[in-house]
């Protein structure tokens, strides 16, 4: 398959992830959709690496994975802290700063 097919697939996955971030209100599912977007970006990186014939894109994708893992750890810890105090994971409920 040509790299453009992979890039198109990554575009579609990225858009679905973005829609999920906008639509869902459970914070865990929002996190999962962000992970989907990062994975789609990784797929595009790997496809571009194959197109250019070098390994730089794969290394960048590797770094994206590391950053995503760190982000998940901190994000889920924040989620646990919010749930502990407010007993809810809905992103609509965390509006204490608004008033």
């Amino acid at each position, binding site marked *: *398959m*040509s*790299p*453009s*097919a992979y*890039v*198109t*697939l990554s*575009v*579609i*996955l990225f*858009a*679905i*992830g*973005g*829609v*999920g971030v*906008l*639509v*869902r*209100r*459970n914070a*865990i*599912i929002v*996190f*999962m959709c962000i*992970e*989907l977007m990062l*994975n789609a970006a*990784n*797929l595009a990186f*790997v*496809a571009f*690496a*194959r*197109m250019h*014939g*070098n*390994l*730089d894109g*794969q*290394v960048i*994708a*590797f770094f994206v*994975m590391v*950053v*995503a*893992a*760190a*982000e*998940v*750890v*901190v994000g*889920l*810890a924040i*989620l646990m802290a919010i749930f*502990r105090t407010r007993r809810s*994971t*809905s992103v*609509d409920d965390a509006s204490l700063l608004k008033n």
Partner: protein
Amino acid sequence: MSQVLASAGSTAAATTQSIVFWLLAVVSVGSACGMVLARRAVHCAIFLAMIMLSLAVFYAMQGAPFLAFVQVIVYTGAVLMLFLFVMMLIGVNSRESLVETIRGQRLAAGVAGIALVVLLILGLGHAAIGPATQSVANGGTNNLSGIATLIFTTYVFPFEVTSALLITAAMGAMVLAHRELTSPKLTQRELSKRRVASGRPTPLPSPGVFALHNAVDMPALLPDGSPSEISVSSMLARREIGGDGAPALPAAPPGPELAPHSEQTEGGSAAPGDGDAGQPVEASSKGGAPS
């Protein structure tokens, strides 16, 4: 394995690759849609696992076996397990309400998503994405050695920054998950005093032992025939209410679910003694718990 994947240049291998690509593309896009649409968080996690595994196959097909394995180990193994772990801690049955807080938000989000796809694909049409370069410049070595060479030569400074990031993330997770003890820890003497003062010094009754069933979700029948609701774990009672799909009150007693449940499990093979024991259960569920 990388040599096998790299030598896939023949037409048969290309056909196989395109078949696998279209199959997994459909699977991954369908799973992504399912993840957005699924109501339960656990189903979303399963869909995400499917997407990540198919992405790992995509990486392997594109000559990136190292990334494929890292994808399986780090994402599907570690990150997704972390998601499931937090999900179990927070409560598997926590459903989000389906009422839109902003009017027309879902429609607008869908339109924005489609617009994003159209925009990016139009941009891709203008970009010059050439065919795959056949010989991936590995420097004469395999994929793993090439990536290692790049990480420790060209990208050595970002790599070191990454280590700092990981240490910071671990510290942050520990600080955020840490709970300060605001009161001194209770000793065993104080705990036993509190237990006696609570009015129930004995352990709670076991579920279902003297009832019709010995299942853990059946409340025990007390000697006067009334079900003891405290014998069922609060987690189980909540799950049974949540499983019905009805937005029942969280404080609803498990009594109303008792009668249909016993009908389902017993069926027609009810022992003659069951009718006698079942009547006080129904009577108490209709008339409230007798004191």
